[in-house]
């Protein structure tokens, strides 16, 4: 925790009111997000119980599984969810712009992309597991499922994968968004509870945040794990549903076997739906309240740039999905793709770290306190300075800038710095002593013999310089999959059929 974050927490604890953790919003917020509040059955590895879903705060759709252990109902639920989600997820692919790339073919990038908001980090994991359990299902043969099911699986997998890329905004947990913007006086673990977190940030009128957070304790949880007290109420309802179904089957025995529910079964199902709706609705409202609060914050300057990367990823994925040859994402990545994924994420993290502090003076304050940045007034400029660097014959413009500052930067001579106010400027530290920093301007002056007009700061400018630099680095050239070296197990064998062929043994199916 940075000194600024620690101070924020102390202030929040002392005053009972959440404190700002950022001055801007660091994630994209869609004009039309889709909110998804999932619940799973306790005691099962992954048995979806209910979902509250929709793009309109006033019109949530409740999907519930009255007997979550019944696999037919489970996949019927996945199909139903798919019918709701797929139109939304696919809707953004049609409108595109052409993006030119240096040294590569141009590509089509969608103008917007879907954004799914879940209450907590558990919701991201829910979508990952949903993808894992559905993307390999087949739409023909013994265990056929509706065509929406594997498609939904591939979309959920894309969303959950993308959520792991630092700075991405296609799938976000509301608790993460809120804790990026505000700090509370409670622990990080308690901040993971949406009800308590939102109570701190947005307490009822006239109430302190800490008291409001205490007041919501014991209420419905944001899921996907259920509250044990709710489980106690749910168990008899599911039992009643099972009884009703069994009774109706018995009545119908001898006549034509019926699979749909009779009036008794429908009543039992409705009781479960009512209980779930009451439990899920408070969280639904809280997520939308969070959207309102975050919408009131201005977006950081680099948010749109990162959203472009999300839009590109979306377009590539949508195009791949449309290709009849394409296959579901593999169960585990190969050696080469795992390494490429890690490299991509590390580059995204470095970019995010550098961009966020540039966008946000409060985050920059923490960096300045840690000695990795300083802000100061320019007191002297030697704009005529020319230096011939070792190994170079001609002298290049290297203006010398002297700043006065109260900050205590801890970087020594030779450190490369970037400037917040002048994004093109690049400089290197010549001297740093208490109260005074001398820099050499090295970039952003054009290629001429003299710096281009306006590129050298003038005396009196107050500038912030940091050693956190968002370098654009090209990814390395990974070997082709079939060239995986012996140190990493050699080329992988040909992929095996994804679904076991023996229909008698359910356990043989590829579930993960």
């Amino acid at each position, binding site marked *: 925790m940075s000194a600024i974050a620690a101070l924020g927490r102390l202030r929040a604890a002392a005053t009972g009111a959440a404190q700002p953790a950022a001055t801007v919003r660091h994630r994209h917020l869609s004009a039309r997000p889709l909110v998804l509040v999932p619940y799973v059955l306790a005691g099962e590895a992954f048995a979806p119980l209910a979902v509250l879903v929709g793009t309109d705060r006033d019109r949530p759709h409740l999907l519930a599984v009255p007997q979550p252990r019944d696999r037919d109902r489970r996949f019927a639920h996945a199909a139903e969810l798919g019918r709701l989600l797929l139109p939304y997820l696919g809707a953004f692919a049609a409108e595109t712009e052409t993006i030119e790339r240096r040294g590569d073919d141009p590509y089509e990038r969608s103008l917007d992309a879907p954004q799914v908001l879940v209450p907590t980090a558990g919701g991201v994991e829910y979508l990952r597991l949903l993808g894992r359990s559905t993307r390999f299902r087949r739409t023909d043969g013994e265990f056929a499922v509706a065509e929406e099911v594997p498609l939904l699986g591939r979309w959920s997998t894309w969303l959950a994968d993308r959520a792991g890329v630092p700075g991405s905004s296609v799938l976000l947990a509301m608790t993460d968004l809120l804790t990026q913007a505000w700090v509370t006086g409670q622990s990080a673990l308690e901040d993971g509870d949406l009800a308590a977190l939102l109570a701190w940030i947005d307490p009822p009128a006239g109430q302190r945040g800490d008291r409001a957070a205490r007041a919501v304790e014991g209420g419905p949880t944001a899921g996907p794990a259920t509250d044990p007290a709710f489980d106690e109420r749910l168990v008899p309802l599911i039992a009643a549903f099972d009884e009703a179904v069994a009774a109706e089957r018995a009545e119908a025995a001898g006549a034509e076997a019926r699979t749909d529910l009779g009036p008794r079964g429908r009543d039992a199902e409705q009781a479960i739906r009512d209980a779930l709706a009451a439990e899920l609705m408070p969280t639904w409202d809280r997520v939308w309240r969070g959207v309102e609060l975050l919408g009131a914050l201005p977006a950081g300057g680099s948010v749109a740039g990162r959203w472009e990367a999300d839009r590109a990823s979306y377009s590539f994925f949508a195009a791949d999905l449309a290709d009849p040859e394409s296959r579901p994402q593999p169960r585990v990545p190969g050696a080469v793709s795992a390494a490429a994924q890690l490299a991509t994420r590390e580059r995204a*993290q470095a970019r995010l770290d550098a961009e966020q502090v540039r966008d946000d003076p409060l985050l920059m304050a923490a960096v300045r306190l840690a*000695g990795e940045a300083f802000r100061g007034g320019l007191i002297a400029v030697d704009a005529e300075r020319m230096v011939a660097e070792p190994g170079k014959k001609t002298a290049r413009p290297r203006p010398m800038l002297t700043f006065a500052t109260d900050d205590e930067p*801890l970087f020594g001579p030779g450190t490369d710095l970037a400037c917040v106010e002048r994004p093109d400027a690049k400089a290197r530290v010549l001297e740093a002593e208490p109260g005074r920093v001398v820099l050499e301007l090295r970039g952003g002056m054009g290629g001429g013999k003299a710096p281009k007009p306006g590129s050298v700061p003038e005396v009196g400018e107050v500038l912030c310089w940091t050693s956190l630099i968002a370098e654009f680095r090209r990814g390395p*050239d990974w070997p082709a999959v079939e060239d995986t070296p012996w140190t*990493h197990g050699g080329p992988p064998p040909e992929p095996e059929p994804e679904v076991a062929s023996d229909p008698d043994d359910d356990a043989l199916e590829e579930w993960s």
Partner: protein
Amino acid sequence: MTTVPTGRAAGDPAALAAAATDAVLADLGSGAHRGVVVDSPPGAGKSTLVVRAAGELAQAGERLMIVAQTNNQVDDLLVRLVQDHPALTVGRLSATGYRLPPALVGTSVLNAEKAEALDACAVVVATAAKWALVQDRRWPWAIVDEAYQMRSDALLLVARLFDRALFVGDPGQLDPFATVDTSRWHSLSYDPSQSAVVVLRRHNPDLPVHRLPVSWRLPASAAPLVSEAFYPFTPFRSGTGPGERLLHFGAAREHDAYDAAVDVAAKSGWGLLELPARFTAAADEEAVHAVATLAARLLARGGTTIGERTPDGVPLDASRIAIGVSHREQRARVESALRDLGAAEIVVDTANRLQGREFDVTVVLHPLSGRRDATEFHLETGRLCVLASRHRHACLVVARAGIPDLLDAHPTADPVHLGVPVSFPDGWEANQAVLAELARHRVALSG
């Protein structure tokens, strides 16, 4: 569990070490294996082995590439190579803007940005990052140095360049790290965030693994503790016995806790300067001041070190002292404090960057000093192992009181991942072992 060696076990350490090296070279020469792994504890002659193996392979007419992790490591290796094998044609592949350091100017080392320019060289040395850019070249042999500090994704980028390789490294030092959460790859045998050797051995379990059994750096006072705490299953011993390394200081003048700590360390090889318990930020001002003052005092006391190579004694000057910390901010603050004390020449660095370096006396700011919690970063065994194994004579630790209690309050609670080899030793236990030893050499500094 294997038995732990004592400072002076039976057998001549020089003979033990030579036998181990010969076995490595025999395995290399046999051509029976695609790879050979050598585990080397701190100061066990890893570089000597690399230089010798390079010489033998080159003599056998095999072209050789050497992969190191940093530019400094490349330069250090080159200096050793041209010293020991002056007749060898050696190339250095380097990035634009790199210039040979003074020690290599005027030697036979050929520096180039492109591999084509070095095709005539018997040995080419470069960093892993630079090797990753080389195309259309292949070497029959490679030596991968500091292979435990290399991430497996870096090995994936260079493994296409060689047929066979010798992997050398210290398994006890800091594991490579990633800046993002890596749990999604944890159960993969080719986890890109794991070290190159771990992945190599999971895919090639039959590769011979050798161990260098003698630390020439660590004194008899340190080898048993470091071996037991950080290498519980692969014990090693010190090359020197008790009393072969001596550290003398002039008479104390201040007669304060700093002098007392210096005297304790001179006598026992270890010292703990303990500040009163307190929760602090990473850049704990009092601890930073204590670390800098202690190092400056070491210098001011005019010490002399006597060892097997220097029986007449060598003055303990600033170049023989180092300060080890965990965070860059701590380093910057200690450096600034040293400047105020007029001892700016003393090296201060983080554990990551002290890896592979050697000093006579070290002053260490304990990674857990002043912390409220024991996070994975601060508990990492490699960090403490690096900090506690850089010295030839003595190691002085500065810490806030209460670390054993902190450890007791934070037992390891990391999730266990299926299919992942258990890594030993356990950071928690290693920390306790080191603290138990340090407690015997404790000097309290009143706040």
